[in-house]
């Protein structure tokens, strides 16, 4: 029994050679990013030991571990989780940071975005055409839309959108929007994907989600009658959030950690999102084209991106969502 445990625990990791090993806490799913780590090891010879989990729980874990954290790199699903542990991250070199636009990284240089996802309105093609839907997210709290709309209030992506909305139109207007949604019968879901599934099933007709869930659902259900509506550039409803990475200040292998972040921002690392990954996320390094059928990133991003505030504003956002009664 003990032997079985030892075998199960050590199998993958003991082949790594002593100090060159790199420990990554990945809040991104294994199915999506595991090939990236293989490519990195092939290119650099550095062995990577990856711990997978939810971004938020990994952030809580890093915070609780304190100086004892075994992690070298935190690879997060969203900017909010990176922002919440930014006091445990050390600044990245300018050469690394400058590969992406300033709006996709931490102003203090402690984390950098590696790929982008856009908030969209997913809609059932049996109920709507893209051009008859509003370009302004605030319009979707009207009764005729809200009653057929799905949201995921406990989901980090939705909360990032609400933070962007608060910062753009103010707390009072944002709260009214949420209260109107609630009053007009919005349906709540546990995550983005179930919303897109529910649209395909006809349970609802609209959903505030990230752009790539459409591709994921169509992979299992190619005939699902769902499409994405991209809202106006700079509208909080088309917020471009990022997945990103940071190096821990307590990292034992800082050199390898920086190399990994550089690799994620290399041409190879960036093309991965456009050509290989099924999620169709946006590459963030200028010059690397996104997957076919996606509007260019420049047509979606407004003049300012509030990503660095997502971590610190999250608590107030959650309080607003809870107060309106959307999480019950």
């Amino acid at each position, binding site marked *: 029994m003990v032997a079985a445990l030892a075998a*199960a*625990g050590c199998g993958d990791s003991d082949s790594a050679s002593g100090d060159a090993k790199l420990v990554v806490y990945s809040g991104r799913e294994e199915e999506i990013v595991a090939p990236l780590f293989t490519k990195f090891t092939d290119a650099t010879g550095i062995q990577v030991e990856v711990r997978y989990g939810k971004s*938020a729980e990994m952030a809580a*874990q890093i915070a609780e571990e304190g100086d004892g954290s075994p992690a070298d790199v935190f690879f997060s699903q969203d900017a909010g989780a990176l922002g*919440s542990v930014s006091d445990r991250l050390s600044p990245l070199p300018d050469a690394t940071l400058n590969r992406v636009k300033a709006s996709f990284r931490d102003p203090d240089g402690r984390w950098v975005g590696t790929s982008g996802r856009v908030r969209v309105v997913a809609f059932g093609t049996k109920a709507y055409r893209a051009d008859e839907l509003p370009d302004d997210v605030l319009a979707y709290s009207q009764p005729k839309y809200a009653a057929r709309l799905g949201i995921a209030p406990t989901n980090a992506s939705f909360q990032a959108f609400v933070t962007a909305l608060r910062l753009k139109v103010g707390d009072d207007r944002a709260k009214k929007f949420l209260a109107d949604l609630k009053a007009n019968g919005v349906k709540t879901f546990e995550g983005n994907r179930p919303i897109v599934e529910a649209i395909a099933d006809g349970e609802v007709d609209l959903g505030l989600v990230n752009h790539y869930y459409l591709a994921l659902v169509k992979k299992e259900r190619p005939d699902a009658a769902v499409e994405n509506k991209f809202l106006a550039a700079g509208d909080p409803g088309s917020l471009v959030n990022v997945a990103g990475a940071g190096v821990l200040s307590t990292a034992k292998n800082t050199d390898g950690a920086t190399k990994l972040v550089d690799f994620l921002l290399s041409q190879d690392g960036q093309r991965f999102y456009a050509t290989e990954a099924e999620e169709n996320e946006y590459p963030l390094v200028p010059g690397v084209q996104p997957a076919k059928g996606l509007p260019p990133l420049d047509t979606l991003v407004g003049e300012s991106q509030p990503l660095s505030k997502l971590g610190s504003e999250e*608590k107030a956002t959650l309080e607003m969502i809870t*107060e309106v009664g959307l999480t019950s």
Partner: protein
Amino acid sequence: MRGRGRRGRPGRPSPALVLAALVPVAFLAVPPAYLAYRAGVGEAWGVMGARTTWETMWRTLTLLVGVAAGSVLVGASTAWLVARTELPWRRFWAVMAVLPLAMPSFVAALALAGATGTSGLASRVLAPLGIGPVPRLEGYWGATLAVVASTAPYVYLLTAAALRRIDPAQEEAARVLGRGPLGAFVAASLPQLRRALAAGALLAALYAVSDFGAVALMRYTTITRAIFTRYEAGFDRTPAAVLGLVLVALAVLLLVAETRSRGADAVQVGPGARRTPTPIPLGRFTPLAVAWLAALTCLFVVTPLAVMTYWIARAAGHGTLDSVPWRAGVTSLALAAVAAVIATVAAVPVTYLAQRHPRRWTMLLERAGYGANALPGIVVGLALVFIGARYLPWLYQTFPLLVAAYVIRFFAEALSGVGTALSTVSPRTEEAARVLGRSPLRVFGAVTLPQMRPGLAASAVLVFLSVVKELPATALLLPTGARTLATEVWRKTTVGAYGAAAVAAVTLMVLSLPFIWLAVREHVLARHPSSPPGG
């Protein structure tokens, strides 16, 4: 009583016994201590003053009451029908009653939700019959149903065990005095079931308080789900810790309530063999009883299996099916076996002390052992992350620390199983052996332990099945790179690969089956005169 006689009646407990009972309970204090450290006083007022906190509290309490009542209704009625009546196909119903033990609550919830709704399996099956779409199961009733699916088997097992212990002579006396079969049962046997029913309701209620997966999938916010949401948003650990302490307080209230409601223990004092009670004829109620059990089986066994088969078939149709995660299966089984043995062994001195030296403090110690069961896995997990990474780096993210988390999380199940086992051993046989000059430890080894053995095995199996299903603490503490079946199910579900998730879930259930058989063998076989008497 204290200090009366050097031998004979056990007086003052030996220091070794007290120490052996104190150590495990001290471990259980780790998560609450961590919460107290994390929760600031100022923040506590803020959280406790918020209206939403109390609304969430109310939802938690109503779920808890619903789950306790529901699992007693389901578990006890099944146990009584199977153990005491002339019900047809009793073995079959007994097996169906415990099969859901192999199903994590989030799988039950996923399946029940997946069976309903406009595109759910139920709607598709019923559509040709002209029956409109079945509304999606969610909210209070959805959460209650999904959690009851997981907790009713515990009540069934505890009740069935107690029913077997009760001497039918009293019921027979009641019948001689003119009562009907049911009336005699209610008058003579039901009072003796109180302890088992209360223990079952307590386990179900504690579980309902700590469950995350089912309530999240049913979109029903309890305090545990609020704790998860707090950790996920803002990563502010203070309000989450305050809510965790609220759960500790709730657990204390539940334990007090359960202790108050306990009746006298049904210990068989005299010598003589227990006899098999005469089965009660159901007569014209037979179809009703069969329909009741069939409905339960359909809801808690057939529906989840059908939904998972449907998902597997759908994924196979798209060619996106994964192979069976054997390696994760081996890790799950090994971890669960080690944790189950440790938890059961550690529960023995705590139980022994409370039952053989019943003082206020020994009983309090035993009650305290139940408390950790109300804390969600994420709290137990983060407490050990905090201590492990900061103070025990050589233990952090190793299997031993994960096993410690399991023992803490599921100690209550071991306690209830061991408690039931010890209560079947008459103290008089122990006293007789002591009169013959044996030392307490040798009496325990020669007299008590052999009689407890079947109950201990059942207790270990219950812990085993819970560990196999555990997710949040596992995710935080598992060695990097290792996997369990529960983490596999979760991993596949998060990327929406329901087919692959169902493969892992079915693997988990199939691997659990032999252990479920171990737990129920006696209950299933006990009623048949050809089989040897249990105990």
